[in-house]
Each structure stands twice: as C-alpha cells, then as structure tokens.
C-alpha cells in the first residue's frame, strides 16, 4: 500500500483528519526547506505538499507567486526540489511528500525521466495544477507504475462526470479546491463546501483534502469536520514573507500556527 493510503487509513482508524501544509521549495532560501519539513512533522502534520517553483503560477494568488519568485531567485528548479525531498526522506520514512506544481517543468524533464526521478526521491504523490485528467493519461500511467500517486483537483463547479473521472484516475487523495479563485483567497463558504463534499463522497472513497481559504485554527477545524484533510499554504508562506530577514522566526511562527491548527482539528 502506498504511504499516502497507509496514512489516510491510519488517520481514519484513529478518527483524525490530515493536516497538510504547503510550502514552496527553496523559499525564502534553499537551506530553509528540509529543516522546515522536519519541524512541521514534529508539530504534528500528516502529509507535506512541497511546491515546485514556477515562473508563471497561473492558479496561485500573490503570496505563493512571490514565494516562487524568491525561490527562483536562488536558482531553484524541479530537479533541486526532488533533491530536497530525497534529503528529507533520509531521516523520515513515514511522512508522505507530495509535489505540487505546474506542468512545464515536468515536460522539460520528460515524463519518463520525471517519473523515475520521483521514484528515486521516494515521492508519494504528484499534483500538477494545469494537467487535467484528459491530458494526463500518459503521465499518470508512468507515475502509477512507479508507485507514485497522481493527485487531481476538484472544484466547486465540477460535474458528477468529472468527479467520477478524478476518482478513477487519481489516487492517494483528491484535492478539493474550496472556492472559485486563486490560492490565498478569503471567501470560504463552509455550507457550500459541505454540500459539495457530500456530492463528491457519493462518488468516491478516495480521501478528500480541502484547500484554498484555510488560514487559521478556526477554518482548519471547520474544514476538518467536512473532509479527510485540510491543506494550508498561503497562511504559512505569509509568515515567511513577514520575516524575510529572520527565517528562524518565520519557522517559529509557522510551527505555532500549525500547532494551533492541529489542536483545533483534534479537539
């Protein structure tokens, strides 16, 4: 069983929900990322989404755009992101790591080389924002054959037909985008999310993680009450951005936020 499946099964058994932080690899500096990942695990997170910096992050709001720009200024790339994941894996064999990014860096590497590299780095899942399932057949097959879960997005306006498509092609978890908008937007409507989750759950048993608009202990708790996991990204990266001169302080603030989310989700 994949590391993601094992993790979600254990969480379900314990009656808990996954806390899934997103950080951009190499932001604010390449030295920051791996130690931040370990610190987040200590704070009780279940899965880590590691953002692959891209020059044109079309689905992201300004906070994650700037994180990509800072990382790229340090010559970050898909290859170096994979190296960071491998480095993390040396001392943590339990925590699933999911790469989240855009397709062009994977196209540039080539699908097969990327699938091999993901396997070598012991990556657990890959979420490619601008790769819908219709175009993902080849890439998905290569990833799955190497034990890597392809993770797809669902949105508030996704039809039943598309929900079934994601459920058939995706594995590990499905990332439900809780609102129409970009990452870091603030207009989360819990009733809408709850209604949509019921529709999705009727079609699939793949765990559903919910992201976009999760920013504090309160929203994390609300989201955890609905789905199988809560993804938090922009709220963490805002801490990095507020402390660019003091990365250690950024780390402390991120850990404090994640700890408060963990506590709220478990209570």
């Amino acid at each position, binding site marked *: 069983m994949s590391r993601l499946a094992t993790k979600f099964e254990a969480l379900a058994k314990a009656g808990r929900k996954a806390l899934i932080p997103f950080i951009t690899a190499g932001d604010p500096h390449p030295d920051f990322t791996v130690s931040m990942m370990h610190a987040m695990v200590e704070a009780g997170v279940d899965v880590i989404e590691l953002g692959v*910096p*891209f*020059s*044109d*992050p*079309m*689905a992201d*709001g*300004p906070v994650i*755009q700037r994180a990509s*720009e800072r990382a*790229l200024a340090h010559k970050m*790339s*898909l*290859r170096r992101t994979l190296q960071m994941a491998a480095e993390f894996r040396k001392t943590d064999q339990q925590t699933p790591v999911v790469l989240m990014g*855009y*397709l*062009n*860096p*994977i*196209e*540039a*590497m080539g699908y097969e080389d990327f699938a091999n590299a993901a396997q070598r780095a012991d990556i657990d899942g890959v979420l490619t*924002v*601008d*790769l*819908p399932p*219709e*175009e993902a057949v080849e890439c998905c097959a290569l990833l799955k054959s190497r034990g890597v879960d392809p993770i*797809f*997005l*669902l*949105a*508030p*306006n*996704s*039809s039943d037909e*598309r929900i079934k498509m994601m459920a058939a092609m995706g594995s590990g978890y499905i990332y439900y*985008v809780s609102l*129409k*908008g*970009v990452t870091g*937007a603030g207009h989360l409507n819990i009733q809408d999310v709850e209604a949509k989750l019921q529709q999705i759950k009727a079609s699939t048993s793949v765990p559903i993680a919910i992201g976009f608009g999760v920013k504090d202990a309160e929203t994390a708790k609300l989201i955890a009450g609905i789905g199988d996991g809560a993804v938090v990204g922009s709220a963490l990266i805002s801490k990095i951005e507020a402390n660019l001169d003091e990365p250690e302080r950024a780390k402390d603030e991120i850990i404090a936020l994640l700890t408060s989310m963990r506590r709220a989700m478990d209570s």
Partner: protein
Amino acid sequence: MPDARGHFGPYGGIFVAETLIPPIQELNAAYQRYLADPDFIAEMDADLQHYVGRPSPLYHAERWSRELGGAQIYLKREDLNHTGSHKINNTVGQALLAKRMGKTRIIAETGAGQHGVATATVAARLGLECVVYMGAVDVARQSLNVYRMKLLGATVVAVESGSKTLKDALNEALRDWVTNVDNTFYIIGTVAGPHPYPAMVRDFQAIIGRESKQQCLEQAGRLPDALVACVGGGSNAIGLFYPFIDDSAVKLIGVEAAGDGVATGRHSAPLCAGRPGVLHGNRTYLMSDDDGEIIETHSISAGLDYPGVGPEHAWLKDTGRAEYVNITDNEALEGFHALTRMEGIIPALESSHAMAYTMKLAPTMRQDEIIIVNLSGRGDKDMQTMAKREGIEL
C-alpha cells in the same frame, strides 16, 4: 484541425486548473452552436461591415515593389480597421458570443494595447463591464493605448508580477477568470490559450485570408506566391494563412521578433529558437530554459513580446507547411521607415517585422510573382517609442 479536444498534432489541448474546465466547456458548446447559427453569423457580418469597416483593402504597393525590384507587393490593410488593427475582427466575434451567453463582464489581456483597445471598444458598444490586464512595462511604453482604453470606460490593471509584460497579463487575466467564472467572459486576443480559443480566434480572424484571396483573384487574376505576416501569438498570421493552407503552391511565411538577435538570447522567437512545452493552457513552442521555467522575452514591439505562440503555428512549422523566420529590432525599424517613406503608410512596429522580411524576400522573386503582406496594424501607437529611440522629445 483541431480535433475535438483542441489538438493540432501534439500541440494545443486544454491544460488548465480544474475550476476553468466548466467555463471552457460552456464556451466551446456556445461557440460550436453559434458558429452554425445563421442569425449569429449575420449579426457578426453586419458588425464587421458597418462598424469595423470591412472588407479592408488589398493595396498594390507599386512604388515600393518597383524600388525593391522583385515581386509585386500587396498590403492587406488591417491597419484601416476601426481601432487600427486586426484585433477587432476577433473582439467583435467574441463579444457577440459573450452577449448571447448572458455574460455581463468582459476581461482581456493586452501587450501593445491593440487588443485591449479593441476589447474596450466592443465592451463600450455593448454596455458590458470591461477589465483589461496589461503588464506594467507595457503600460509605460504604450501609454496612449492605456488612455484610449480608459476613455472607452475600461479599467486597466497594471500587472506587476513576473516580467510585467504580456505573459504576466495573461496569468492575471486567468486568475481573474477563475475567480469570476460565473459572470465573466475572457476575450483572449491571440490564437493561444486552452481550446477552443486557438481555433475560435483563428476562425474570427480568417476573414483576413478569405478577403485577401478573393481580392487577389480580382486584382491580379491569380493566387499569390507568398504570404508574409508577423507572429507574436500569431493571430494576424493565422488569419491570413488559414484560407490558403490547402493551396500548397502558396508559401506561408511567419516572421518572429528576433529582438537584439536570436544568437543573443534576447528575443521573442519561440518557433525559431524555442522548444515545445506547456503554458497558458496549451502545448506549443515556448521560450523556456532547461528546467522548464519561462524565459523573459525581448522585442521593441510590445505586441510580439510573448514567450509562446499559437499551437497551430507549432503544427504548421513541424509539418513544414509554413516557414518561420525572424527579424531584429533594427531590421524592423528599417521596414517601418521604408513603408512610411515609400508608400505614405506608417505601420505598427509589429507589422514592421513583416515589412522588413518582405524587403529581403521581394528582390529574390520575379516581377510577375506576388507577395501579400499583412499590414496588421497602424503605427500611431508607436510614435512615443519611435521618437524616444531616435532621441526626439515630443
């Protein structure tokens, strides 16, 4: 071409985040429906005739042809359209589609500002709210067009992210669309973006080629030997080429912007010097590095300053049906001055790239041969850039 999911061979397709899939499906369904609706076509044709001023002339540039001493040069005068470029052919079509679909808000990206002006114009006419995204660098170098858009009632948003040019304006427009999918119609200005945009924009621009073909037959009694058009995203070029694709004796030549020269790396010529990849919803040739990051582009012409190109051009290149060449900033300026002085027509800097290549091509051809060059826009918007370049204060 393309297939049902928008593929031109390996290029094109739909590469967007999931939230955009439903509006793209809705758009595609509406487009297919209205393309076959005689009422829609009649309304669009009437607008193109009475509002845009079509057909645009095909003008035999006799003096310039004589001076160059080779092929006869005919200019397709898209510069004479309302708003001064070919861009309005497409915005008229898409805005009518938006109206039929019940959308109340229009967004667009723009580089040189020609598409932004053409969009703001049709939005004003139809009484639709209009927001235009424009890179901050382009806002500065095309301030006349920014003012025109504002006069027309559009909100112009200066995009400060990335390289602050056309590609970043496109990113920002996509972000707006994903946030406001329910009431907003995104009028893409070129043959890029996810399916159905490349095919739809081509179909709205193909009137350029259809008219050219008929006018050439009327004036010269035969088809041209070569077509020349500048290529940024590639909408004016595909509009001219498309009706001639099956006429295999007609050479199709797209002219990319070489900026400081392709060898310097400071250019906007993905077909000549890029590689296939995925950006802005489709697979095509891109300016991208070994890691797949998009490289900043350079061109004197804001309208050609884009790292991608329409997927159908990528396919025409690979199949060899069209040829793609490039022209530097300095060569484009020579083309600009030549047309201005020889024919009394001031071309846009974008179109000047096509003029410059025509200056190289015509002398290599016989005097009984014919080149049709797409004069895609007029140069009024470029007066500040030209004056600054020549050290003149206006």
